[in-house]
């Protein structure tokens, strides 16, 4: 049996089991894959000998751990490829599915990983970040970072004399100048002065940097452990 056929079988079994919460019979499997029941029966016996499935005395199929892993992996590849082909390349979904069936056997894990990331980015662009990545004049002078991952408290929440570690520069800030002055993630900073309006003098790399309150609130930090 070809490796691609094996993968197809395992994928089909896994898919069926996820959908119906039970493993398929030979007949059901044959119908899904458009093969004869006899052919399926003999192939299943071969998979059983390779340790991908266990065939019980009454003929029901169960996936072994190895079989389940392979099946899940191929299924994920299929979904990613199909999504890429239809969502990003714009193919219609049935031919995308067909094409994905062929590609899924040859594609590397690395490629799938990257495709997955690409789809997420693309999705983000399409649905969440409306216009966020459009270059504007403002962005040229003050680059707007769509960086909402950082959940650290802002440096404004700390008081004079405290030492903190910078985690991120989030939100809309003139980030480039901060970066150039050494306020980069991982850098240790001492709050030298804090005025009542929240304007700060921060010492990094032996230099004092004064920032306005709204800039300070965009600097995510953690207390020095």
């Amino acid at each position, binding site marked *: 049996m070809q490796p691609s056929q094996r993968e197809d079988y395992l994928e089909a079994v896994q898919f069926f089991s996820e959908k119906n919460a039970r493993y398929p019979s030979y007949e059901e499997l044959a119908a899904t894959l458009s093969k004869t029941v006899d052919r399926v029966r003999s192939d299943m016996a071969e998979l059983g000998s390779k340790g991908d499935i266990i065939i019980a005395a009454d003929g029901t199929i169960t996936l072994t751990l190895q079989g389940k892993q392979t099946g899940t992996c191929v299924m994920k590849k299929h979904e990613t490829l199909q999504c890429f082909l239809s969502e990003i390349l714009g193919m219609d979904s049935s031919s995308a599915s067909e094409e994905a069936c062929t590609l899924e056997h040859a594609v590397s894990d690395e490629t799938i990983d*990257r495709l997955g*990331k*690409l789809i*997420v*980015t693309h999705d*983000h662009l399409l649905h969440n970040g409306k216009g966020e*990545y459009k*270059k504007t*004049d*403002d*962005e*040229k*002078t*003050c*680059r707007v*970072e769509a*960086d909402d*991952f*950082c959940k650290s408290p802002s440096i404004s929440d700390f008081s004079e004399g405290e030492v903190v570690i910078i985690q*991120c*520069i989030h939100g*809309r*800030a*003139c*980030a*480039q*100048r*901060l*970066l*150039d*002055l*050494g306020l*980069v*993630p*991982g*850098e240790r900073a001492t709050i*030298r*002065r804090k*005025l*009542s*309006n929240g*304007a700060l*003098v921060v010492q990094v*790399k*032996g*230099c*004092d*940097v*004064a*920032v*306005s*309150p*709204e*800039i300070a609130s965009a600097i995510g930090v953690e207390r020095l452990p």
Partner: protein
Amino acid sequence: MKIALLGNPGVGKSLIFNQLTGLGVEVNRYPGSSVALECGNVCYKQEKTEIVDLPGIYSLDGNSEEETLVRTFLTSGGADVIVAVIDATKLERNLYLFVQAAEFSPKMIAVVNMIDEADRQGLLIDADSLSSHLGVPVILAAASEGRNIDRILPVALGQATPARVHVPYDHHIEAALKSLEKTIGTPMHTNLLALQGTGNDPVLLDAAGAIAQEIGMRHRMSVSQIIATNRHNFAREITASVVKRSNHKKPYDLDSLLTRTFPGIPILCTILFLLLMSVFLIGSWMEEIIVEVFTASVITPFLALGLPPLANQLGFSLLIALQAGLGIAFPFIFTFYIGLSLLEDTGYMTRAAFLADRAMHRIGLHGEAIIPMVIGFGCTVPAIMSLRLLKTRREQTIAACLVTMIPCSARTVVIAGIVAAFVGILWAFSIYLIIFILLILTAIVLSRITPGEQFGMIVEMSTLRMPQAHLVLSKSWLRIKEFLFIAMPVLIGTSILLGLFQYFGMTELFEQLVSPVTVTLLGLPGYASTALLFGVFRKELAFETLAVLSGTANLGSVMTSVQLYTFAIVSVLFVPCVSTIAVLYRQLGAKIAIITSVYTVFLGLLIGAIINILMK
């Protein structure tokens, strides 16, 4: 040979530049930019060497005018050798710029300046080790003592080589750089900039943009942040291996006084008040002497020559212009520039910006806007040019409008010469008060109606140090030269025009034309309109013209106190001078120039009319 000095702001580049070139410095404007480049020539071993002082910058990645200029300068091979000036006390932060410049692979040397200051702080820098890390010759220098400055030229001309530094970038960045280099064929420094969204090749930017986005998603951090972090870490490693710290006593930290709300803000107010008062007092004292000497030694003898009327009129106008120029430039503007240079060289200006941040936020600006405002008390033209400091269009628009309203030293002359002399010193201060209130009202309205977003201030606090007399003087001298260069031609041209006007009797025509406004609305004598008109050319001309037209220097005998007061306030408020309009147009475009001019005319006439009606 051409050598360029590159470095962060405040590393002592200018001092080194001055010591290398001596006098004979030219200020050039780089084509298509308003950033000044200082150039000077020296002869070394019978060979002419040109030295360029590049503007101080923190990074080559940004998009400010200065950063773009230096980047273009480096990519176009503007100099044969780059002398990177590095502050010994801030080695790590300064090496950040060095490694960026090294990526453009010019021939370089490094000058580690302020080694005396580093000694005092207990920092020992191993020059040989630094040199082997960077791959270029390193000179330890102390420009304030002149130590090792004489070694710069021989080393720069003889031993400069491209630096051997390679920042270990994150492997995704490295991969991206390689693939861009392969697919598009652009060099590494261009690709690094393209990944951060800077460049002019649309194909490259497109490709780089897509990669940058992916790397950003993967790291959950923008590419700029990753690149900056990599460079800073690299600089930190080098610094750690070449700098030894010995124990030393911490000197008293003046900032504990200067940057606190109390006593910082009272100190700030006192310093600004003293600056303006001394300009006011020293200025009027010196002006009197200059005008007197000039009249006695030049104008009186000239009038005694008895030339034909037209030549006499032209010559007289020319001399009056020279007198006005000298009478304002040296006493007021030069004094002011000395004070300003003192504030800058001590490093106090950045403290002022920090403290002013809160007040400036109320009017839609941020702390750095205090710098153009203070400069505006000297002369509006350089103040408008310094608006580059503010990053967004919104801030520049608001600040431009305010700066043109601030009484510059020419307007101080009008206030001092007319109101303080003939009405009373307290009335003179009341004019400042009125302008101050109008400024705040204008600012509050502007900050509501000006479109755009507000961004805050990010300023490095300069190190506090003793200013050096010769540096302060040479800086003030450069500035006054720039002022004379812009103002003198306008001054002479308009003075001659005024002379011709008078000679052909056209002033009366003009006076009749606008008399409804001057006489009826403002309650001024007819000839005041001509004086106001010429005040548009240079503000102090309003005062001089008024004296000429009224036929006496004792204005109190021909006009009432109310008239003098109204005249002063109208001429102070209304229309910035032509040089200001020209520089506004150049920096911010026609629209802002027109709006500002129209607004100030309207404001001047309105306030003048109100005072006339109230006090008549």
